[in-house]
């Protein structure tokens, strides 16, 4: 964990090459790199600038070729947020998305931490079988699970409910795996200190493993929040009434529906839909980035 933190965010130590000529050549050789990065960076910014400009421009919903809004206004936001004028419960969608993502993130963190602890630190019959079931469920592509889940929730009569929007995310094999690997790295000496006190496995999990893994568990929670909040296919098929939609699905309905040509209102909704994720990004960027880096490095 520590090594990722330093290697991703820390400045790498400057190699010590005393000769001045080498240093000049080095900074000169970086110019093309900087030029490339600047160009790509501007390309990355460009769409967002236009989205913001269109959203804040009261121009009859038409996009303009100007970087700055010609008639800056919150009109588009007022129009799309107003249920009467837009006909869509946008705030409800937003709250649905946020609520569902938070519950799923907490659920996954808790369920996966318990399971990972048992797999990493308890000895029991069938542990190998359980472990391989978890690993192999990582390989199942989501498309193979999606329609069966739809059919299953249909059969259970749970479609178009918050249960349908949350429960399928709770079986998160990736999280079990991430925490499992972290738990394996916790020194046994620490653990033995608690067993001397005669503590059972639950106390050990709660008193030792949970506090030690709080950082990586939070990362798992954030990644889950991001996945659930941005998920599209499942909430699309699992919900059917306007009030149960999540904001990702609602945005699609608006985008290919009545607001197809009203770019101002559509971009205002796009901006609104991104705000919760943006807050997460601003406050937990480092943790999100670490989590992704770790999932990549631990993935194979």
């Amino acid at each position, binding site marked *: 964990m520590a090594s990722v933190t330093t290697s991703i965010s820390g400045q790498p130590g400057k190699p010590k090459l005393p000769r001045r000529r080498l240093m000049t050549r080095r900074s000169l050789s970086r110019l093309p790199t900087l030029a490339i990065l600047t160009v790509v960076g501007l390309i990355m910014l460009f769409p967002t600038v236009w989205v913001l400009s269109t959203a804040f421009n009261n121009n009859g919903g038409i996009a303009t070729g100007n970087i700055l809004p010609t008639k800056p206004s919150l009109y588009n936001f007022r129009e799309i947020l107003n249920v009467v004028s837009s006909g869509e419960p946008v705030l409800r969608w937003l709250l649905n998305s946020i609520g569902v993502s938070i519950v799923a993130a907490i659920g996954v963190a808790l369920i996966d931490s318990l399971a990972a602890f048992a797999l990493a630190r308890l000895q029991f019959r069938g542990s190998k079988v359980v472990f391989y079931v978890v690993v192999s469920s990582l390989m199942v592509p989501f498309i193979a699970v999606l329609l069966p889940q739809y059919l299953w929730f249909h059969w259970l009569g749970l479609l178009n409910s918050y249960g349908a929007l949350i429960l399928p995310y709770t079986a998160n094999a990736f999280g079990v795996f991430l925490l499992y690997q972290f738990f394996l790295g916790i020194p046994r000496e620490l653990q033995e200190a608690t067993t001397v006190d005669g503590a059972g*496995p639950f106390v050990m999990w709660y008193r030792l493993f949970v506090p030690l893994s709080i950082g990586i568990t939070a990362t798992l929670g954030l990644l889950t929040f991001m996945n659930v909040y941005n998920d599209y296919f499942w909430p699309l098929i699992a919900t059917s009434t306007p009030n149960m939609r999540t904001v990702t699905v609602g945005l699609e309905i608006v985008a290919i529906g009545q607001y197809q040509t009203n*770019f101002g209102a559509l971009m205002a909704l796009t901006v609104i839909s991104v705000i919760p994720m943006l807050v997460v990004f601003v406050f937990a960027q480092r943790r999100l980035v670490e989590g992704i880096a770790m999932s990549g490095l631990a993935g194979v």
Partner: protein
Amino acid sequence: MSSLQPSQPALTDTGSGQYTGRGEAFPAKAGNGPASPVLAPHQAVGKNRRKRRLVDDLKAYAFLAPYLSVFILFTLVPVGFGIYVSLHKWSTTLGNQGFAGLSNYSTLIEGQGYYGSQFYQAMSNTVLFVIISVPLLWAIPTGLAYAVFRSPAKGLWRILFFYPSVFSVTAFGSAWSLLLATNGGSVNSILHTDIHWLTGVPMAWLSIDLATIWATMGFSFIIMYAAVTQVPRIILEAAEIDGARPFARFRYVILPLLRRASIVVIIIETIASFNLFAQDQIMTGGGPGYDTTTISMNIYNQAFSSFNIGGATAAAFLLAIVLAVIAFIQLRVSRRRA
């Protein structure tokens, strides 16, 4: 810590460092040891141990119970049910319409009927997208990772390349629809052109690729950047002192050391690209005609426009098999070259 060591065998190592909590002073097979003259206490110990073992098992499964129950309820059982449904004529609204054997599968494989014939076109469209997007979604993040590694203000670049990841697929889909709209789109109004970015082939594919790369490459960039920073500095310095230019250092020193991360990125991006759905749906709606209809759209339309969820489930399982085979081949090839 250990979770970051890609080479460690921890993935399959359930046996090491485990807490047994089971009085380890006793030999493992106390009950089968040499016959003891005092039988009663010996048997008592054996019974006691068996009882404790059962208690330990129960405790462990208590920890696993939440995960196993949601896994069984919301993954295993649905997939089993899905297999059953795929063997039936099954309507999304009316339910079971009778046993169909493998006909749902054979219809698709033989390309019969509306969705069967579309299945192949959707498959080849999807493969085309995968072939274009996966190399780009690997190469661009990898090149950028090295460029950022060599540049000052790393934090700034990292934010710039990663921030679009906060956009949901519908958010960036609608944003790019605005940018690329033929009438009133920003790109056309800046360039003073009338290009059909979204309504003509091959431009529509180019647009979908562009939007997808813009929005999703941050994820791969972070993985590749983390891998670049783990390249031992001493090797890079040695290459530099030997006179290797920056590109040569990248090509011959760094790239070979990024193999493992590259495999992860390529497999993740292949699966993600095969699942292309929402940005396509918003930006082109699968058109013009069926030219940008993907396999996921085919499955979705089959289930929710034609209400033939039996056939759609069969198509989903076929896609899953294709994906599994491809991931298996990718892993095999990468291991053999190692």
